[in-house]
């Protein structure tokens, strides 16, 4: 859980990136590579969109994930 601009962004709040915990091995490649610093580790060491509204929907995370554990299901609400 983190607070951004007074808003609590929980791991279960609306986000368009889905992190498959069956596939994810918590290697941190997505956390390391996200160019906008959106993805951080959450509970139990699994990644989530901590700074959700900074996402550029560039797709780098899904591309870089070695386990294909991230799916961009849709685009940010305001633009999709």
């Amino acid at each position: 859980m983190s607070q951004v601009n007074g808003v609590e962004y929980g791991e279960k709040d609306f986000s368009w990136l889905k992190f498959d915990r069956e596939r994810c091995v918590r290697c941190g490649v997505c956390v390391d590579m996200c160019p906008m610093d959106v993805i951080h580790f959450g509970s139990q060491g699994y990644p989530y969109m901590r700074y959700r509204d900074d996402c550029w929907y560039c797709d780098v995370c899904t591309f870089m994930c070695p386990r294909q554990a991230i799916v961009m299901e849709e685009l940010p609400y305001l633009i999709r």
Partner: protein
Amino acid sequence: MYHVKQADIVIIGSGAAGTMSAIYAHRADPGLKVVVLDKSKMETSGGAGRGMDALNTVALPPYSQPEDVVELMTKVTEGILDQQVAYRFGEICPRMVADLEQIMEREKGDLFPVDENGNYRLMYLHPIDKPLLLPMDGEEMKRALAHAVRQTGAEVMDRTPAIKIVTSGGKVCGVLAVNIRTGHYYYIKTKAVCLTTGAAGRMGLASSGYLAGTYEFPGCSGDGYAMAYEAGAELVNMECFQANTLLKDHQGPSCGYVAAPRGAYTVNPWDERTWSHGYSSGDSKMGAWKRFTQGRGPIYLKMDHLDEQMIQIIEKIQWGNERTSRGLFHQSREQNYRNAHAVELAFAEEVGVCGGHSSSGVLSDTTGVSNVPGLYVAGDVDGGLPHSYLGGALAMGGLIGEEAAHYASGIPEPEQRTGLKAWLRKEAAEFEAPLGREGGLPTSLVEFKARARVQYYLKPPKNPVFLEKAAWWMERIRQEDLPRIQAVSLHDLFKVQEIKSILTVGEMMARSSLFREESRWGYQHWRVDMPAKKPEWEGVWVVIKKGEGGEMTLAKRQSPAHQWEYPTSMEYAYPDLEFDTGPMFQKGPEWKNPKDDPWMKAHLDAQGMATPRRFMAKEEN
């Protein structure tokens, strides 16, 4: 926590230009200590972080020569450029292309297409009669460049953006940076800086309202423009805005550069073409503006006349790299390239400035150096080489790496400013102040306001009243909102720095537009109060620089005399903005209100005062 480091060259921004700077600096002198700073992660940062599909403007014999680049740039800048810089870029294109193949470990003909004679096969796009566009299978470009940089032994500091370029005696002597994940400060003593921070692309707010929904990589918030300005550098063409035709809401490229060379073009619902060529110049922007202003929007990317194979090629390129989420975007809106009027485009949804897509930035010469000794620029922050795109970033990025290495090898350690430790403490305290505030303004709110004002008051057509208002708003937000802004994390704290850059660049855009008392570059600097090009502004730069007293100073400067005689204009005319809206409502003879308003008078008499009660002090019981 403070760390003091020593370097010969600091590269600020490790996008396409910055990575090439590091590689070439190492080649020029492997003994030099090079530090690379990036706000993001070098492997994925910048506009080309996910990949890129072409070098939009390059000269590669025998298809095109350096002179052809000069011709293009002379034409689209309407003669306001240093042709020698354009020629220098054209000269080094073949070297850059060969190096990129070697760095990416790709065979000739694999990364770039070649013809039956082994020559790079360029495509036509630009408004001249020579091909200058080289397609590219560049999905892995940034990873390869980053790998090459790490192999040089350069110290790469990811997530560590610079916040200040420090000078002593007018020369570069250091860089202050902060890690946005640890909060550690770094002061790096250095002889030279390669500034490769990209465009000021997070400026005008697009109508989607999504702050990170930008055409340029949203990390490119004009920090380089602002830092260079604060360090005493001269910036030019800040009135020549970038205003693109983009995918509505997605803000991804309309991909005219992918689709147009392959037979696509833009039309409105009545199949009227917006302009004669796909290149993003002031005249084509004017064409797009006219369609929308006539109420004849939207604009569509027309591809339904192309055969299936060509459509699949376009899809593969557009959905395969750069902004791959566009495939998902089209799918969610049921947009199919095979249908008429499928792909909706919008125009000028976000005004900004950029050296690569337009011609705004830090003025540099044929060696990429600015007026500040030791400060080199390349890529989108560079105003010395206009309309250079990725090819310019790569080629000139490499060039400034070499030039900075030669410079740094030949000079002693620069003097540092006196009282360095006290200065660092002061800078850090100022930078961190928003973290300590309780109940302040959220950063997103302030950014929204600043960028909404930029978009409303700076979007062409320009008039002096709007421009003055834009400058006024930048100052008001600086004075009134910044002291109250609150950051809730280190990640959030850097946004305050980005907002400061947005305000500085917004003010430069406004003041430069006010100063250039004419219209030029089609839509990009269209003053409705002065809708013509004027002879006294031919070949003249508006140069912005920070004055002795801290004020923004502007001056006219003649750009160097042309060595090559090429056309200095595009084919367009400014539209007449007199609209006949027909007869308006006419008041009849009975249509008048009494001079004395009995209802208001009764209220005033009853209250015994001329001021509404709510403004008066409460009566004591």
